[in-house]
Every structure is written in C-alpha cells, then in structure tokens.
C-alpha cells in the first residue's frame, strides 16, 4: 500500500508555506523528544543485550554463511530478473502504449494487496515439483513482490525525462534501438535503476514470511531458528541486518537527491522508498 502513497506524493509540489507562524516550540520539543526516546530505547537495549562480543561471534555460527549466501544469491537472481522484466516493459509502455500506464500501475499494485502469506499458499499449490524442490522458486516469487517498487522507481524516473525527444534525437542521429536504450535511456535512468535495485535487494534480504513457509533457511529465517540457541547472537544478527538496510536506504536518498539537484530530475526520497514488504 505504501506504493500507492508514494504515487500520490510523487506528482505533488509543495504549496507555499506560511511565513508567519505562531511559536509553540515547547510542546513541539516535548513531543519529538518523547518520540525520540521511544524509538531509541529499543536500539540501545538491543546493543546492550547483544554485547560487543556477539557481533564478532555472528559470523562463526553454524549455518550463518549458508543462510547469508542463499539470501545473496536470491537477491542477485531477483534483481536481475526484476530489472530485465520491468525496465523494457516500463520504457515500452511509456513510448508506445502510454494509455496502458494506469493499467500497469494497478497491476503492479496487486502484490501489495495480496499478503505474501496468501500468495505463497497459492504458489506452493500450483508450482511444479522441480521448482518446489529448489530454493530458487523464492527468487521467482520475489520478482512479483519487487514489482511495485521497481515499477514506481522506473516510472518516476521516466516521467522526469523527455523520453520521446531523447529517442527521436537518438534515431535521427542514426542510433538503433539497442544503442538508444544502452547509451541514451539507461544512463538517464541511473537514479531510478539504483533505487529499484536497492529496494529489491533490501526486500529479498529481509523477506521472512515466504522463505520460512517454503522451508528454506534464508538469512532472516536463520536468525529466528538460531534464537533457540543464543539470544544475544540473534539480536546482534538482527542489528547487523538493520544497519545494512538503513545504509542502503540512506544511499538511495543521498545519491538520489544529489542527482536530482544536478539534473533537475525526479527526486527519490524516503517517502517514495518506504516499503512494507518485510512487515507484511
């Protein structure tokens, strides 16, 4: 559902702000301070609970490297498939079938409407045996989960471009389709591609619902399974997973806004990258 919101926000420019505002800084500081405390205490507690030593221990635990490698492989598979599917489709629809954009948008929202726990029930029901016996089935399904976020990033990126003009200019200079795509469109979509990639990778690395129900030990599934053995190590692993996700998100925000300033293109901000997938 967050995908929908980001869309509502994407096209909006902020209206002018009132210059004169009544000063009520005291209650504002109280609210924000209380909020800050509520959000920081669990982080602090987890750091204390895990202890510094556990962070070093995490990597030596049984199953850690297998789980991490499986998650990374799935991330690569999902990202490659998602981009290979969504980049040409989105560009094609923008150029040739602009009237289908709304339809495409509604279709790409569907994975957000259907909870992962329901989708995996259906997938395990219909998937052929040779797919069910491999963890890479998850990679194929994650493409569906990643679609809303990839589509939204790419669509925002394309809308900020004069796509028609670029394509016409390229073809009048004698460039063929592949050259135009590779040397004109894709370089202009770098920010969008980056945010689509980062969101997909973060989604795959954090996805728990489907992996645990498909009975494969990806990284988040391993963390939960390992909790039976050692609480502090699981907490340390959780914190590591969190910090990595946050670094990814901050990467999009900084790179995105710097490029947006330079090129005047669509700004990629934290609102448009908010995702609810790992939660759902």
């Amino acid at each position, binding site marked *: *559902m967050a995908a*929908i*919101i980001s869309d509502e*926000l994407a096209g*909006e420019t902020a*209206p002018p702000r*009132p210059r004169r505002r009544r000063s009520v800084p005291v209650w*504002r500081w109280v*609210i*924000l301070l209380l909020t800050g405390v509520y*959000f920081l*205490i*669990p*982080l602090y*507690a987890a750091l204390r*609970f*895990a202890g510094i030593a556990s962070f070093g221990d995490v990597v030596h635990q049984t199953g850690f490297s297998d789980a991490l490698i499986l998650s990374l492989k799935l991330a690569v598979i999902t990202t490659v498939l998602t981009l290979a599917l*969504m980049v040409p489709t989105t560009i*094609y629809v923008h150029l*040739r*079938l602009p009237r289908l954009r709304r339809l495409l948008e509604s*279709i790409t929202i569907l994975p957000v*409407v*259907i*909870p*992962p*726990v*329901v*989708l995996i*029930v*259906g997938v395990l029901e219909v998937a052929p045996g040779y797919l069910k016996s491999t963890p890479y089935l998850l990679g*194929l*399904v994650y*493409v*569906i989960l990643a*679609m809303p976020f990839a589509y939204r990033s790419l669509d925002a990126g394309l809308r900020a471009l004069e796509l028609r003009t670029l394509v016409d200019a390229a073809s009048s200079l004698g460039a063929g389709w592949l050259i135009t795509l590779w040397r004109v469109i894709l370089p202009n979509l770098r920010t969008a591609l980056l945010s689509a990639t980062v969101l997909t990778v*973060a989604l795959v690395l*954090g996805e*728990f*619902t489907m992996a645990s*129900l498909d009975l494969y030990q990806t990284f*988040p599934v391993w*963390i*939960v399974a390992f909790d039976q053995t050692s*609480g502090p190590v699981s*907490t340390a692993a*959780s*914190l590591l*997973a*969190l910090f990595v996700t*946050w670094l990814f*998100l901050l990467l999009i*925000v900084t790179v995105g806004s710097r490029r947006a300033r330079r090129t005047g293109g669509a700004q990629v901000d*934290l609102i448009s*990258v*908010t995702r*609810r997938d*790992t*939660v*759902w």
Partner: protein
Amino acid sequence: MLRRAWTLAGIVPFAVYVLLGLGIPTAATAVGAFQNPDTGQFTLSNIHTATHGIYLHGFLITAELSVITSVVPGICGMLIGYAIYTARRGAILRRVAITASGVFANFGGVPLAFLFIATLGTTGIATHWLTAIGFNPYDNGFNLYDLGGVALVYMYFQIPLMVLIILPAFEGLRPAWREAAQNMGAGTWQYWRRIGGPVLMPSFLGCLLLLFGSAFSAYATAEALTSGTIPLTAIQIGSFLNGNVLAGQQNVGKALGLGMVLIIAVLMVLYTLLQRRAARWRQ
C-alpha cells in the same frame, strides 16, 4: 488492427510473468477455497469452517489488533506530523525527523521482534530497569508475547508510517485559509474545528485504512515474536502450510486467504474513495 495487436506484443513477457506468478496462484487459492481437498468437488464447508470457531476468532483478534495499531499510532503520528509541519522548512529538526520516520517505517519483521525481546522480553534491558524501580511489567499484566506485546511492537513501525503519509496532508493546508479565517475573527480552535479538521479528515481516515491494512496482513513480526502462538489469521494460514491440519480441512487455509484478500480489497476501495475526496482541496 493487426498493427495494434503487434504493438501489444511488447508487454507480453510482463503479462505472462504476472499471470504465472500472481494470477494463477491467486486463482488457485480462490478455487481451492471452494473445493473438497479429497474429492475436488465444490463445497462451502471450507468457507463455513473459516468463518466459525477458532478461525472467526482469528479474524476478530486480527481486526482488534489492527484497530488498536492503526488508531493509536494514527493519533500519535498525527501529533508528531503536526510538530514536524510547524517546524521551519529546511530546519535540521525537520529533516532529521522526516529521515528518521522513513528509516523506522521500513523497519519490521524479524529484526524488530528481536529488538523488542532485548528490550521488554522477560530478560530484557528495559524490563530490568523497570524492575529496579519497583515495577516489574510481567507482574503487572504485561506480556511481550501476547496480543498487547505484539501491538506495542507494531507501533514501532506504524507511528513513523503515519508521520510519513500524513505530512503531505498537512502540507496541503493553504496558509491563505488560516489567514482568511483569522481575518474573520476565528481563533485557533475555530480554525481547526471548521476548516483544518474537515479538510484533513479524509486524508486522516485514508491513512488509518493504510495502517489497518498494514497491520492486518503482517505476519513476520508476530510469528518471530510469538512463534505462532497468537491466533492471528495470517499465522493461522501459515500453520496450514506447516502441516498442522485436521484431515479434510487442508483447504481451509485457502478460504482464510481468500477472506484476507477480500477484506484488503474493500479497504483499498474505501482508500481510493477517500483519496479522491481528499484531493478535492488540492489541485
């Protein structure tokens, strides 16, 4: 005509993928909800089971949890959103608050569960602090691993989500409205009662629906926290895949899944209507 059909060929790979990965599995779930698992014949017994007894209870508990974790964070998020909105644009406070909301709203599932176990679990740090000052939460009816605990944990991502999605609504309040109201002698209370409140209301309700949906279909956090001991619908569906099923009830999980999808579809329709209503004031 032929040319038109040819143009559509460009989206065939996408369409096929969506059909195979989303359409067919969802259809199979919906069909299975009406099938006898042994004979494959049409039956309403799955639906009947899914809407009675423990499964009805599951839907009710899920709804209760979703109401609590959308209304309370909705109000908190609104206050925080307003505090951020009144800060000067570009002020550090404002930028930090918005970035932090984005970061925390993205935070859920397994890591969040462990963060709270470390904080308010039976051996958690905050539990120790509270016990030290004479208030052991576990002696006073609190339990991180039951419904109240799960609700507390959900707030952690619901509040920042609310802040992020309500901020644009605040930004949409035109300063001119406030000035016009003041010129006509309206005080702060009257402004919010007659102008600000009614303009914000559709957005606020729409945001509550999103929070409700977000809590309604959550699985990972509750599962990691309680190991599936609380009777939420999502967790009940999961337990069908784990094989804890009575004979003849294998398809009840699909009926539950169908129920969840229908409920979320209704929420989406309401959300779209509210958005349309909210958009009336901005253009």
